[in-house]
C-alpha cells in the first residue's frame, strides 16, 4: 500500500518535473527568436518542411470535409425547406471549429511527428551534443526556427483549409444539389461575423499551432536517446497534441462563443 502511494508520488513529481522542463525549454526557445532575424534562412527552410509539405494533405482534407458538410447539411436542411442556409451552416462549422481543429490534428500527425522524430534522432546520434561542443546552442539553432515555423504555418494552413472547405461545400451544394448560387454566399455573408467567427477561428489556430509545435519540439528534445525512445516520443507527440487540441478547443469555444 505504502509502496503504491510512493509510486503515485514519484510519477506525480516526474510529471511536474517534465512540465517545468517544458516551460524552461519554451522560455529558452523564445530567447532564441531575436537571433533568427539574422538567419531568416533557417526559418525558411523549416517553413518548407513544416508548412509547404503539409499543404497537400490540408488541401485534400479541406475539400472533402467541405463537400461532406455540404452533402449532410443539405440533407438535413432540405427537410425544413431551409437549404438556402447551407452556406451559413458550412461556413460557420468550418470557420469556427473544423478548420482550426482538423488542421491542428493533421498538422500534429504530418508535421509534429516529423519534428519530434527529427529532433529525437539528432539527440540520439549526438548531433545536439556536438553542437554544444562547438559552442552553438542547439535550442537557438535547431529548436527556435522549427518552433517559429510551426507557429507561422498553422494559422496559414487553417485559413487555407477553411477557404478550400467552403468552396468544397459550394461545389456540392450549388454545383451538384442545386442550391441557389446567390443565396449560398449572401446568407453566409449575412450571418458570418468577421470578428466573432473568422478572427476567433484564427486565434484558435494560433493557439493550436503554438501548443502542437511546442509539444512536438519538446518531446523530441526530451526523448530518451535510443530508437525506442524516439519512437515513443513521436507517439507521445501525436497523442498529447490530440488531447491538448481537443481539450483547448472546448475551453476556447466556451470562452469565445458561450455568451
Amino acid at each position, binding site marked *: 500500500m505504502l509502496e503504491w502511494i510512493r509510486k503515485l508520488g514519484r510519477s506525480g513529481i516526474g510529471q511536474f518535473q517534465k512540465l517545468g522542463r517544458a516551460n524552461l525549454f519554451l522560455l529558452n526557445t523564445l530567447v532564441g527568436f531575436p537571433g533568427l532575424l539574422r538567419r531568416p534562412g533557417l526559418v525558411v527552410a523549416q517553413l*518548407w518542411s513544416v508548412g509547404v509539405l503539409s*499543404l497537400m494533405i490540408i488541401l485534400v482534407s479541406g475539400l472533402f470535409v467541405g463537400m461532406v458538410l455540404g452533402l449532410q447539411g443539405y440533407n438535413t436542411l432540405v427537410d425544413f425547406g431551409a437549404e438556402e442556409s447551407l452556406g451559413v451552416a458550412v461556413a460557420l462549422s468550418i470557420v469556427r471549429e473544423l478548420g482550426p481543429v482538423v488542421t491542428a490534428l493533421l498538422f500534429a500527425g504530418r508535421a509534429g511527428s516529423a519534428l519530434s522524430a527529427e529532433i529525437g534522432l539528432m539527440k540520439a546520434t549526438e548531433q545536439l551534443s556536438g553542437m554544444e561542443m562547438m559552442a552553438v546552442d542547439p535550442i537557438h539553432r535547431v529548436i527556435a526556427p522549427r518552433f517559429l515555423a510551426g507557429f507561422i504555418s498553422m*494559422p*496559414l494552413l487553417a*485559413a487555407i483549409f477553411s477557404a478550400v472547405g467552403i468552396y468544397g461545400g459550394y461545389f456540392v451544394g450549388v454545383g451538384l444539389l442545386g442550391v441557389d448560387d446567390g443565396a449560398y*454566399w449572401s446568407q453566409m455573408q449575412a450571418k458570418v461575423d*468577421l470578428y466573432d467567427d473568422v478572427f476567433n477561428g484564427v486565434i484558435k489556430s494560433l493557439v493550436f499551432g503554438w501548443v502542437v509545435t511546442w509539444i512536438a519540439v519538446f518531446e523530441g528534445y526530451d526523448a530518451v536517446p535510443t530508437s525506442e525512445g524516439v519512437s515513443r516520443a513521436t507517439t507521445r507527440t501525436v497523442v498529447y497534441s490530440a488531447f491538448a487540441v481537443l481539450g483547448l478547443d472546448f475551453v476556447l469555444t466556451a470562452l469565445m462563443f458561450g455568451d
Partner: protein
Amino acid sequence: MKSSKTTELMVGMFIAAGTAALFVLAMRVSNLSSFDTGDTYRLTARFENIGGLKVRSAVTVGGVRVGRVSAIDYDIRHFQAVVTMDVENKYMGFPDDTAASIYTAGLLGEQYVSLEPGGSEELLKNGSQIELTQSALVLEKLVSKFLFDKAAEGGEKKGDQQGDKQ
C-alpha cells in the same frame, strides 16, 4: 532538401496562399461590409417586453439596416426594458414621433428593432428617447391566448347544446 531558391519560392507561395485564404474568409465569407466603424448617435427606447432581442441585433428602417442595439438594460423603477441603439450618423434626422417596434425576421429568425418615421417637425437628436414603442410578439402568449379563446368558445357551445337538450 531542394535548392534554396526553389525552397524560398515555394515558401513564398505558401505564405501568399495562406494570406489569400485569410483574405477570402474576411471578404467573401464574413460580413465585412456591415462592419463599418463610422460615427454613430445614440437613441433609447423603452419596451414592456423585448422578447429575444440581443446586443448587436440590427436596427432597421424600412428594411434597411441603419444601426445596432448597443445595450439592453432593465429599469427597475418603471418596470420597463431600456434598449440603447447606435444609429449611423448619415441616418440622422428622424422625426421625434418615430415609432420603434420589435419584429422577428422570418418565423423563427432573429429579432430586430424596426423604426417607422412619423410626421413631426421636431427631430430626434443624440441621446433622444423614442416614445412610441411596440413590444416584441411572444409566440407562446399568442398561442395561449388563441387556445384560451378557442376553449372559451367551445365551452359556450357545449353550454348551448346542453341548454337545447333540456
